[in-house]
Every structure is written in C-alpha cells, then in structure tokens.
C-alpha cells in the first residue's frame, strides 16, 4: 500500500510496509497515485493529454525500479502476524495518581476537575510504595521503568512525590532497575526549589498551559475562579529555561472554544517554549466544549496553517518542535511497538490514590475497568489479555488505513468511550492523526530541500 498526498504544493508518497518516503514531481504524483488501480498503458492514456508520453513512460520506469528495490508498493506479510503484537507479559510503565485533587478547576477536565468522578484524595506514601514494588515485581527483565506523577495536580502531594522518588532510587540499587520519573503539572504551584528538584530527578516534565492568555484563563480558572495563566506561564517558562529547553513539554488542550488553535501553538512558541504539544480535547458530544464531526474540516485546516508557519519559523531562526509534527523516518520504533501501541492495560497501568489499578489514566473511574489493586498485588489477567488483543491487527477499520503502523490503531480509552469497543477507533482521532502525520512527513521533506 502506498499513500500519496500533497502538502502545501509538495507531492509525497509513503510506502506503508517499508516506511520509505518519496518526494515526487506532479507527474510522479499522478502516476504513483494511479499505479495500484490501473495498468501502465491505462495510466499513459489517462495522462497523455497533460504530459508527454515519453515523460510518463520515464516515470513508470522509475516506479518499477523502486518496486524492485522494495521501497514502493512493497508488501511484507510477515509484518501482520499476531505473534508480532504485544502479549501480556511484563509491566514497565505506571501513571501514579498521587493527587485526585487539583488547585485548578479546568472546565474540560476529563478527571472531573481532579477528583476522577470520586472523592478528592491524596495518595498515602505506603500506597505509592506498594505501587513501585508492584512495578518492579512485574517488570521481569526490563531495565527501564517509567513512573509519571499525575493528578489532579501532583504538586498537591509533593512531599509524597519526593519520598517515592527516594524510595525508587533504593529499589533501583536493590533490583538493578532504572526509574525514569516524570511529572505532569499545571505549573501553578511551582517555585525555584521544585524546579531545581525536577532538574535533578525528573527525566521529563509536562506543563499544562493552553496558549493565549484569554483562551487559558477561560478554561483553566483557579478554585476561586480567577485566571491561572499569569502564574502558570511564568513558572512554565522558568522550567523550560532551567531545563535548557530539553526534556519537557508545554502541553495545551484545544476545545470548540478555540478552534483557531494554531494561534495557541504559536503563542506558546512566542512565549519562548521550544517543546510544544497542543492536543484536541476528548469529551462526550454532549459537553459544551466537545469537538464534533462538524468541526473536523476547520481543525484539519488549522494543521495546514500551522504547518506553513512551522516550516517558515524553523527555517528563519525561530525553531520550535511541535509534538505531532515529529516523525522518525530514519528509525522509529520496531514493528512490535507499531502494532501494539501505548500498551495501556498491558505493560502500562494507572494507580489511584487508594491503590486501585486501571488500564491507563483515562480509564480511571470508568465502571468495569478496575483491574486490580497494588495493596493486594492482584491483577485481573483477563483484562490484560483483552487489552493485549486490541492491537492494530484486530481492528477492522485499520486494515485498509495507511497510517496503521504510525498511530497503532488509536487510543483504547477513546475507542471505549465512543464505541464501547476497544477495537473500534474513534474516527475524529483517526482523521486528525492522519493529517498530523502528513504534516510531519512534509516537514522533513521541506527541511531536506532547505
């Protein structure tokens, strides 16, 4: 399968099974786009009114050479065997909900402004220790273990965060493991001391700031109802600078209230952030902030607008990185990862303040998805198997999709929320992901051309 597309006047082709990418001229694009459905003679006839026959034949020769090289219209059946996909084995990553409480009251919060539809709770130290013990015990031969301190806002339980990091360092020595601790925070409660601590102990910091002040303040008020942008922005900028613009992300969310979200991405870049991620909100359609199908054309257009400005800025000295416009075309993850995805419910779990285990942070509080407890150490293996089986090969819609080895079949939490079926991807997510991937490939092409 080959996906051809045009991004801002640049013609490109992605060979799905090999991952090879080709830049085409207009005639090349026309020929490659027709190749699978028409014979060479039919293609020549179809294009003869617009292009010289000799030129069309020349392109056909180039296509045939690339086919022989295995970089165009390649097909590798061995990629698509269930044995390649993830099986329930070790657990290597954990989202640790140290605080089901928050100092902000964000209107779009999937966690019900921090409580995750339950009580506002802080994780006791002993529960956190049991969570880390379980992670180590279930990690088998994996060396690197990931723990993200999450909330709510984890800064509301920062003392426990620090004690858990210290405990994790002890476990590292004892069991020959390496913890990669990360923290996701709204940046509102940070100070110099915590920023210095982050630099010592956190391999990544995710800072929630939505972009423009008016957009952020409308969605992310404090408990008292006042805006949080001034303080959060100032602190987030300090973190970015203190980390030398590396190993952090400033992460925004866009809703139907800021469908011109490219301006928020650029506002974050203007504020001096070099690592930027702005994500579509995921809410049920009855929410006043939810993104609906009718918004999709405008959203895709925003990615086009952002693409143009992104390429321009990176070339003229205003470099920044947008999470979804990055793609590794030289290496990237192995086929097992490409088929299995995020590993939610299999090798990645979330733990609540009272020690309950869920497949991921998005599933916390959803009925029927509690899969165990760190207190008892028991995990429902049938749920793990169910999530492991929800890989891209078992998703009917993905079989004909060119992006399947890049998006891994979409987010399980979205599939469950919108279709109550882990194997049915959320269509809005699919369309956005495909657009962002086209942009990411085109960015590399544009930068290679210089």
């Amino acid at each position, binding site marked *: 399968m080959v996906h051809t597309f045009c991004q801002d006047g640049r013609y490109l082709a992605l060979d799905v*099974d*090999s991952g*090879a*990418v*080709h830049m*085409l*001229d207009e*005639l*090349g694009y026309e*020929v490659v786009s027709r190749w699978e459905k028409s014979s060479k003679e039919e293609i020549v006839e179809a294009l003869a009114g617009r292009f010289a026959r000799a*030129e069309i034949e020349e*392109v056909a020769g180039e296509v045939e*050479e690339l086919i022989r090289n295995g*970089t165009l219209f390649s097909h*590798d059946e061995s*990629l698509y065997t269930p044995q*390649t996909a993830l099986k329930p084995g*070790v657990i290597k*990553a954990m989202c640790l909900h140290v605080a089901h409480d928050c100092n902000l009251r964000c209107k779009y919060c999937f966690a019900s402004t921090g409580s995750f539809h339950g009580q506002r709770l802080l994780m006791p130290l002993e529960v956190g220790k049991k969570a880390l013990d379980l992670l180590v015990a279930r990690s088998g031969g994996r*060396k*690197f273990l*990931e723990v*993200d301190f999450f909330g709510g806002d984890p800064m509301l339980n920062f003392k426990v965060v620090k004690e858990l990091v210290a405990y994790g360092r002890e476990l590292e020595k004892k069991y020959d493991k390496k913890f*990669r601790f990360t923290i996701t925070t709204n940046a509102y409660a940070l100070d110099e001391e915590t920023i210095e601590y982050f630099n010592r102990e956190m391999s*990544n910091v*995710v800072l929630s700031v939505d972009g423009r002040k008016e957009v952020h303040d409308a969605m992310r008020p404090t408990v008292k109802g006042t805006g949080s942008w001034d303080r959060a922005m100032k602190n987030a900028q300090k973190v970015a600078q203190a980390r030398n613009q590396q190993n952090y992300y400033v*992460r925004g969310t866009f809703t139907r209230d800021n469908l011109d979200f490219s301006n928020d991405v650029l506002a974050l870049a203007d504020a001096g952030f070099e*690592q930027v991620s702005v*994500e*579509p909100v*995921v809410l049920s359609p009855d929410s006043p902030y939810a993104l609906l199908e009718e918004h999709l054309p405008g959203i895709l257009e925003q990615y086009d607008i952002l693409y143009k400005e992104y390429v321009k800025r*990176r*070339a003229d*000295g205003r*470099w920044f990185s947008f*999470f*979804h416009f990055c*793609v590794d*075309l*030289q*290496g*990237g993850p*192995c*086929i097992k*990862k490409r088929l299995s*995805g*995020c*590993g939610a419910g299999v*090798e*990645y779990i979330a733990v609540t303040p009272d020690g309950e285990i869920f497949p*991921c942070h998005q599933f916390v509080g959803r009925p029927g998805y509690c899969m165990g407890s760190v207190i008892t150490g028991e995990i429902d293996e049938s749920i793990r198997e169910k999530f492991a089986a929800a890989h891209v090969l078992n998703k009917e819609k993905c079989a004909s999709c060119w992006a399947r*080895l890049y*998006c891994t079949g979409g*987010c399980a939490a*979205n599939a469950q929320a919108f279709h109550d079926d882990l194997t049915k991807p959320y269509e809005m*997510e699919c369309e956005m*992901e495909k657009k962002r*991937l086209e942009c990411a490939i085109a960015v*590399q092409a544009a*930068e290679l051309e210089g």
Partner: protein
Amino acid sequence: MKHIKTIANSCINKGAGTGCGECQASCQSACKTSCTVANQSCQNKGEKVYNPARKNA
C-alpha cells in the same frame, strides 16, 4: 531519478532482536490523549522521543 526522489529508505524495524520493550510508553511522553508512536525512537538507538537537531541555534 528525475521525477521521484527518495527522502527516507525503509524504516520499519522488523529484524531479529526487536521488541525488547525498553522504549518509553508512548502516552507517557507528552500527549496523554493520543496514541502515536511515529515520533518515538527505539531505546536501543538512544532517544525516547524523536526530536531532530535544532537548527539555527
């Protein structure tokens, strides 16, 4: 080639030794809401999230 220029060769890593699982869980990196692995690299190649070298530094 005159009409087609290859800018990236085969990158789907399917050889022996793949699937070690030492790489970062994709949702832990920055998104927390989507499932892309396109911007991830193999742990054995040394990067967690692919990030091309900053230009014009």
